[in-house]
């Protein structure tokens, strides 16, 4: 971040000044794509209680990128390969949530620590890469090129189309798997597909935010939105809006301060989440939160 840029407290000149930098403009473009994608997929992740799995899949991006750099391939291949792979492994080994919570969480934890250990190994094997570790883990918004943005947009389009196609049955399968099963919704297959989509999304997002901070964009806007309203469509839209606002303000704040983008985004998002909790506490009778979302989703799905 350029430290010589002071805040003049005049919004027009400030934004104008920020817009002079090409790197800031592309950071905003990339941030917008990533925020929309993370908000949509993260909404389902929070609803399905797969935050731990999502976190694990996100962390798999780090060894992926490290391996790609070690082998001399583009880091994108590493991100996508490892994130989608980790999603598939968890989906394949976890037995539909019925195999016992204890074993499933142990399995997820072991997958996570092993992939991270592999990342550590690749970093150790590839000498002189030590300084790159921080940017792999914590991201660098400012290194985004226009070619990267094209790839980001293409992947985002594919993922969003898939989500649009499976959104309704996935919502059904998420809120009531047994009834969905009985009605002939292939909830097991949808679960696997969703973890793969989650892998692709985290791979995409972590190229911008780094492996450790993907999770903030995935979980926080979605959790905030589900706190505010119980209506599925509305909270999905709110989740996108929260993610966009948080990303835009985070980028701006990072530009005008010496502190990193990841800190600002997570802090703004956490602030929103706290406010939503306060709001939810006072508006408790109207009912928000995951259980209420599930109830309303069932009536919406059942009505049509």
């Amino acid at each position, binding site marked *: 971040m350029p430290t010589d840029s002071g805040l003049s407290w005049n919004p027009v000149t400030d934004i104008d000044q920020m817009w002079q930098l090409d790197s800031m403009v592309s950071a905003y473009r990339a941030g917008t794509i990533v925020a929309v994608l993370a908000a949509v997929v993260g909404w389902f992740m*929070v609803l399905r*209680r797969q*935050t*731990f799995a999502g*976190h694990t899949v996100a*962390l798999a991006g780090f060894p992926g990128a490290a391996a790609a750099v070690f082998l001399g391939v583009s880091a994108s291949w590493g991100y996508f390969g490892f994130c989608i792979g980790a999603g598939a492994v968890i989906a394949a080994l976890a037995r539909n949530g019925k195999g*016992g*919570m*204890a*074993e*499933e*969480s*142990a*399995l*997820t*934890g*072991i997958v*996570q*620590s*092993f992939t*991270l*250990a*592999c990342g*550590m*190994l690749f970093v*150790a*094997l590839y000498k002189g890469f*030590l*300084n790159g*570790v*921080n940017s792999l*883990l*914590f991201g660098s918004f400012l290194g985004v090129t226009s070619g990267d943005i094209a790839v980001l947009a293409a992947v985002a389009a594919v993922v969003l189309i898939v989500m649009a196609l499976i959104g309704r049955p996935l919502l059904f399968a998420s809120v009531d798997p047994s009834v969905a099963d009985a009605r002939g919704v292939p909830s097991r297959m949808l679960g696997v597909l969703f973890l793969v989509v989650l892998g692709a999304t985290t791979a995409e997002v972590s190229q911008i935010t780094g492996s*450790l*901070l993907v*999770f*903030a964009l995935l*979980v*926080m806007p979605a*959790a905030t939105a589900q706190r505010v309203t119980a209506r599925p469509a509305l909270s999905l839209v709110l989740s996108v809006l929260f993610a966009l606002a948080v990303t835009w303000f985070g980028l701006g704040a990072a530009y005008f301060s*010496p*502190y*990193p983008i*990841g*800190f*600002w*985004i*997570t*802090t703004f*998002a*956490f602030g929103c*989440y706290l406010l939503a909790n306060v709001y939810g506490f006072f508006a408790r009778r109207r009912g928000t939160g*995951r259980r209420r979302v599930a109830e309303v989703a069932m009536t919406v799905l059942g009505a049509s």
Partner: protein
Amino acid sequence: MISMFSHPFMVYALLGGTGIAAACGAVGFFLVLRAQVFTGDALSHVAFTGALAALAFGVDLRIGLFTATIAVALLLGALGRRGRADDVVIGNVFAWILGLGVFFLTMYTTNRSGSGSGNGSATINVLFGSILGLSSSQAQTALWIGLGVVAVLLFIARPLLFATLDEAVAAARGVPVRVLAFVFLALVGAATAEATQAVGALLLLGLVAAPAGTALVLTDRPFRGLGVAIVLAVGEMWVGLTLAYLVPRMPPSFSITAVGTFAYAAAMIYRSVNRRRAAVPASAASTASPVFPSPSRVRLRPSTASTTTHNTAAPHAKY
């Protein structure tokens, strides 16, 4: 092999590592049983932020580690009902904690000693551990803290197990379920903070989840499982350190985690082979007494035998 013990840093690593591994194995067993692995994961990220905050303010790294980890452990317990935090709450809290960690990292890099590789390696050490860098006194502290955690945990193991397996009945019988949950989380915090120095914030689950997961696969008996988890964790630590010594390019954190993962995979394969062989006469075991027996005779998976027969008999239906 013998020359391994002639290096003081290896002796310290083995010494400190033994205490750390024992504590992680014991704590991890209950974490897995209580399905709280995610809590342990979150605490390891807190350890990262705590350590960097201490560095940023120029305090001893370990003070930050322990204060932050134990405090957040208790906070997570307080946030959730009955001392167990909701996973979305955990996710939100620790995503922010990580952001704070980056903040302290920037503060540390801008305020202290210019730029360059020195600061980079500080982060690497916190994230991935530096067990070979333990000094004599650090190793002794690690050993004592580890043994202390194990001792306290063994002291509360019986009521904690009761509260873990059947919370409602335990509470009705007068077991202080909520207090136990807090004591347990504080122990997790202490073990996490100590282990971060050895294997790092990111690889902690390798020591916490892997031995416990393996123990659960190998045995149904809770106290035997606890013992197996501790022994496995210590064994994995020793084997991992030896491997790292024999193959100089292999970082010890990797070898320790990798040994744990392979032990888990081996146990899974062993069980699936064993189950297939013993599938037929297992149904008799499922008709055990329904009354809650003395904890030492409890089976962790009372339904295992019956589900096994269903799984193998129903789809194939050869007979």
